[in-house]
């Protein structure tokens, strides 16, 4: 019995003590050095202030329809045709379904000396096509040339029936979107998506590099119009605004520069839901106490 007690209790205790004596300094280190200075700004950033810097529209609707997303509006065969005929994926294709994310990946395996291209199709018919591995140069296309190519891409997608017919796709802007060592290597053409004049938060965009089209985001989803729902007021929506978490400080002020009604995608219920869209500037107190301003878009569901 004594031996058992010795083995089960005493030995582990002795081993633990020896281990801690030996590894303790490595794990724990010496005591902390005292911090003598005091903070420059003793009041930490906490509550934020909401500043309305625009006129609140008075004639916003009080009811709008929900838009129910159609799970798989386009069969795989059609996407394979799109892959071949629009995105020139004429080599060997691998198809992989990710059931967690409801996405299908169509990959053309390294057809041109090591470059792969991917067509990723998601719930409701949104898609991304991108080329991976092409050498990028500083010879980016002009904004006019980029717009012309992007318009052509949109037209081809329409012809193949992968653009929802009940949305409007309107040119929005062309911007440099990708930089190497401070010089542009990519330019993106953006299009706003709307339903009956109400914008979606998601967009259609075409990114181009010196090698041509690099990425296409068709962030639309096919939908059918569902029930009409009562909307909360814009004032109530503003009361529900909350600052986003920032991994480098805290939001001190939210300055609302414009507000409009639109739609945003809710993945939990797979619907487009009416949403107040606030264009805003965030005043951020950085970790070290400086103030920075950042433009952003904040959304609040307009349904109760």
């Amino acid at each position, binding site marked *: 019995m004594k031996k058992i007690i010795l083995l089960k209790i005493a*030995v582990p205790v002795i081993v633990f003590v020896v281990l801690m004596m030996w590894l303790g300094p*490595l794990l724990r280190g010496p005591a902390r050095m005292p911090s003598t200075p005091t903070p420059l700004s003793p009041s930490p950033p906490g509550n934020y202030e909401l500043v309305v810097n625009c006129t609140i529209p008075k004639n916003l609707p009080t009811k709008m329809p929900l838009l129910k997303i159609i799970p798989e509006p386009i069969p795989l065969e059609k996407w394979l045709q799109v892959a071949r005929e629009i995105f020139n994926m004429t080599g060997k294709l691998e198809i992989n379904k990710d059931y967690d994310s409801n996405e299908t990946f169509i990959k053309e395996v390294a057809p041109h000396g090591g470059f792969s291209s991917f067509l990723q199709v998601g719930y409701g018919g949104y898609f991304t096509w991108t080329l991976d591995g092409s050498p990028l140069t500083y010879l980016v296309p002009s904004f006019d040339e980029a717009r012309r190519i992007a318009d052509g891409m949109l037209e081809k997608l329409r012809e193949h029936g992968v653009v929802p017919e009940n949305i409007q796709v309107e040119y929005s802007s062309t911007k440099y979107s990708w*930089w*190497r060592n401070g010089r542009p290597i990519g330019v993106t053409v953006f299009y706003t998506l709307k339903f009956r004049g109400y914008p979606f938060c998601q967009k259609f965009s075409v990114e181009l590099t010196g090698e041509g089209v690099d990425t296409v985001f068709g962030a639309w989803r096919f939908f059918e119009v569902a029930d009409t729902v009562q909307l909360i007021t814009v004032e109530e929506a503003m009361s529900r605004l909350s600052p986003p*978490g920032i991994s480098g400080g805290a939001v001190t002020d939210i300055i609302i520069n414009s507000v409009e009604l639109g739609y945003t995608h809710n993945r939990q219920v797979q619907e487009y839901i009416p949403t107040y869209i606030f264009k805003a500037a965030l005043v951020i107190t950085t970790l070290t*106490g400086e103030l920075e301003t950042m433009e952003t878009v904040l959304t609040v569901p307009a349904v109760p």
Partner: protein
Amino acid sequence: MMGMVVLMVKDYVLKLFSPPLLLALIVLSFLTVPFSITHAQSNDDSNDKEVGVEWINDYPGEWVYIRGYGWAYLRPLNHRDEDAEGFYNKLVQDGGFYGLFDFNNTWAWESDFEESPEGGWLGDSYIADNVDYVYFAGHGNPDGFFFSTEHDDGNYNYMVHYSEALWGNRDLEWIFISACEVLEDEDYHYVNWKSAFGDPCCLHGICGFASVAYDYSELGEKFADYLLQGYSIGKAWRMATIDVQPYYVDAAIYRAWIDYLDTTLCDYYNEHLPGYGPIYDDPYVYEQLDPNCVVILVYESWSCEGGSLRN
């Protein structure tokens, strides 16, 4: 081996003490600790599929004084766990990677990422530089990334300052930093991280953000998902950040590039995870093989506008 022991100790303390494990541990420790580890060149182990993550939600919510730097207000965050563990779980469960550590909050230590922390703390050779891919999710700024506790008795307690980082001289290939502004491009601030690549250059690259980033949960898993679909590391980071982060956020990658007589021999942007596409040797290896090879570091940033999830 030493690093493995340290990982075991740290992980072990998080759980219940178990005498048999203690005994095994002490025997292992005595066998391995006395051997020193050299840093003269890369010391990649044979397993190229090791991953580790550290994340912090529970920042103290108060001003902390950082020696040699000043005050910083470390506000708690909400979704750093889902971000980092989404990456970790995806690679381990779906990608067959070996998950070596998932340290969080008070168990995520700055010394785990530092070459030579002062005061007897073990450095990165045993943690971050002991795996191939490491992902950090927490607070950051152009000078470094931040922790909720202090484990360095010299300057820059509570943070990994860029001057304290030297990665890849043991095992690390890539570090992914899901935190604000660590790769800020204003005034070429990102160049400060050049020394982290080592001389000779061992690290393959750093992925991060050039601007403020939002505390959203999906980035790590989305990034891992793209990697396992066969996207290159650069492209996967690019696509994931565009998908997850909203308007006006800029993401970035700072990585090695091998120039051979003014042509690109390899751009580490195009490197893949092992088993999912081409992988490259450590950058210095090319310079050793052929004096015409030159390692340069290339920085790219992009706007996150236009993705499919949040934008």
